[in-house]
């Protein structure tokens, strides 16, 4: 048993910590208060190799391992969960499935652009009627000569506004459930794809969340990702990686809240001493620190398993579940420590609180994570499908 990070892990962590502290942190509040897409930050992140971290170097990626990936996502989220959302989606929901399931030609065509920041990716799975029950999705794909024709509406698509490369899931065969689903690489320049409603959100405001309308969108047959009918498998495998990214995001938010609250507790004077000298505050800080560490350990274990090539669905769900609930709890306590100051926008803790909530929802709600974990605990299929 060895809890040490390697030299490279520490160097990557330190580099991205400095990058996030200097390039993202000073702009995080403004990006939340008047949400705009942080194009300049994304370009700088790309120059560092953060947009396609686990993509092999020959396709323009950084070629780092899964532990490096979560360490970096934690650092980014600690500075701005919104910025990190944009980056983690490009990595785990777009680059990763192309790198794992794409053809050599697809990898060569799409990965270098996605890694260099020339392109941005988004992931079109959820539909108005099918959220947690994603495998029942109804978007259709029919073959027409050398093309597939996709029809349907996808919602809650992160990066939906700015992205030019989409991974979209559609039902290409008559089989019900996951087995009828295929995955496609859809470019925004293809005819028939458009951006619909753009959501106004509680948190992670600088990342766009949009509806993507596929109105007989014509996709070349060569853009089918994986075999026909393997879309469900691709979606679920991709979500394991996605959940790691969200676990890391939640750990980053929790750590930001802990750091702010600790600094505030040391400097804020009441009754003639710093509030950190009161047990009421100390207990909160102790619990925040313990839960954040526990979440990080779950996150690292899942990342380690991924690196070993082992199945890590259960561990990714545990990490995502625990980390997101820790982020929610920790940011809630941080506001309490700040008192009235925590409730206003001069301090960042209210933003952490708003940002934290999404981690309990996207890439599988806490309830879905519990179902996944329970299925593994019980050793049997309790939700039916797959």
């Amino acid at each position, binding site marked *: 048993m060895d809890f040490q990070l390697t030299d490279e892990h520490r160097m990557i962590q330190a580099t991205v910590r400095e990058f996030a502290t200097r390039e993202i942190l000073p702009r995080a509040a403004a990006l939340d208060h008047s949400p705009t897409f942080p194009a300049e930050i994304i370009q700088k992140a790309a120059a560092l190799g953060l947009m396609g971290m686990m993509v092999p170097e020959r396709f323009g990626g950084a070629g780092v391992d899964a532990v490096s990936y979560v360490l970096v996502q934690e650092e980014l989220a600690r500075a701005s969960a919104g910025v990190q959302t944009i980056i983690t989606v490009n990595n785990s929901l777009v680059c990763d499935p192309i790198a794992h399931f794409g053809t050599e030609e697809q990898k060569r065509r799409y990965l270098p652009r996605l890694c260099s920041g020339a392109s941005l990716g988004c992931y079109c799975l959820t539909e108005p009627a099918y959220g947690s029950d994603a495998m029942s999705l109804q978007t259709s794909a029919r073959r027409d000569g050398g093309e597939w024709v996709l029809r349907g509406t996808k919602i809650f698509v992160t990066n939906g506004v700015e992205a030019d490369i989409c991974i979209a899931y559609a039902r290409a065969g008559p089989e019900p459930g996951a087995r009828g689903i295929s995955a496609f690489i859809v470019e925004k320049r293809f005819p028939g794809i458009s951006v619909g409603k753009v959501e106004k959100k509680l948190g992670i405001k600088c990342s766009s969340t949009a509806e993507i309308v596929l109105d007989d969108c014509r996709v070349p047959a060569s853009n089918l990702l994986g075999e026909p009918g393997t879309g469900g498998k691709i979606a679920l495998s991709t979500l394991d990686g996605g959940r790691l990214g969200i676990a890391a995001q939640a750990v980053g938010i929790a750590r930001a809240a802990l750091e702010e609250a600790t600094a505030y507790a040391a*400097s804020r004077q009441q009754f003639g001493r710093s509030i950190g000298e009161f047990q009421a505050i100390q207990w909160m800080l102790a619990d925040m620190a313990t839960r954040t560490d526990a979440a990080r350990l779950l996150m690292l274990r899942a990342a380690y398993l991924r690196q070993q090539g082992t199945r890590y669905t259960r561990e990714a769900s545990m990490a995502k579940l625990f980390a997101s609930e820790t982020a929610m709890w920790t940011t809630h306590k941080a506001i309490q420590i700040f008192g009235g100051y925590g409730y206003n926008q001069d301090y960042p803790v209210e933003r952490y609180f708003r940002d934290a909530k999404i981690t309990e929802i996207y890439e599988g709600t806490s309830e879905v994570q519990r179902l996944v974990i329970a299925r593994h605990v019980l050793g049997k299929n309790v939700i039916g499908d797959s």
Partner: protein
Amino acid sequence: MTMGADIWVYIEHAQAAPKKVSLELLSCARSLSTALGGNVVAFVPGSKIDRVIAAVGPRGADIIYTAEHPLLHPYTTDGHAAVLADAVRAESPAIVLVGSTAQGRDLAPRVAARLGAGIVTDCTTLGWRDGKLLATRPMYTRKAIGTVRVTGGGPCIAVVLPAMYPLPDADSPRQPEVRRRPVQLDGKAIRTSVREVKSVHRETIPLIEANVIVSGGRGMKAPENFAILDDLARALGAAVGSSRPPVDSGWVPHDYEIGQTGKTVSPQVYLACGISGAPQHLAGMSGSKYIVAINRDPNAPMFQVADLGVVGDLFEIIPKLTEAVKKVKSGIGD
């Protein structure tokens, strides 16, 4: 090299006037000479330096050595290092004091290396104990104070921060003897050439020489708001500085920056406006005699080092303060 007991001050000058720090070092040299027993010597290198000599004269030196040569103006490392090293070799002073300026820091280590002289830089105090020079100096970005002893034989060079020693009055009864040292310099030995010296347009005085500094931070909110600090500085006869965020945001030029990555200052009064007080900034200004902080955030760490902390809106306070200072200066009202 044998060592005498004289204490030299390298006189840096510009526009025919000695730099303030060089004159301050005459006070430092005088206090050291009480322990060492040697002369206080002003070493004035340059070209057409009569007015500099005249200005140094009544500041308390026992002897003025000059090294005059057309190639010594403007300053070049090669030219000044040659004459200073030659003079030190010939006269063997115990200590050479140099002001911690761009020029002093350029020159002193080069001369020390040439002579094998012990060198200690950024000194805040100097003392003579048991026949050795003892210096204190900030280290680790002012998180610690180091006491350094110069060991071994031969002269030593101390580079001293400005504003550490009092400016001697220009009324010393001593009539320093002026000794003109012959200078031999070959133009080929001077490898660099100064193309021009652009004075950066600043209405106020240089930061490191200022007695009062008005400084702005992130709380200034926009570049144009530094105008209210300029007004106050003009009224107070102060210099304007900043913490790092305004520099990083491009509101003010790099040379405004005070802190670990900028300048180190120690004025009589430091007026921090909208500066939270990050350790990186405190490293550059916590040596100030008095600190006044204005900030709307009562939890700003700056308040923990300020002698006077004012919680309030600097955009309301500063203009009114400027008016009040003007009134006092002009003798109107209180």
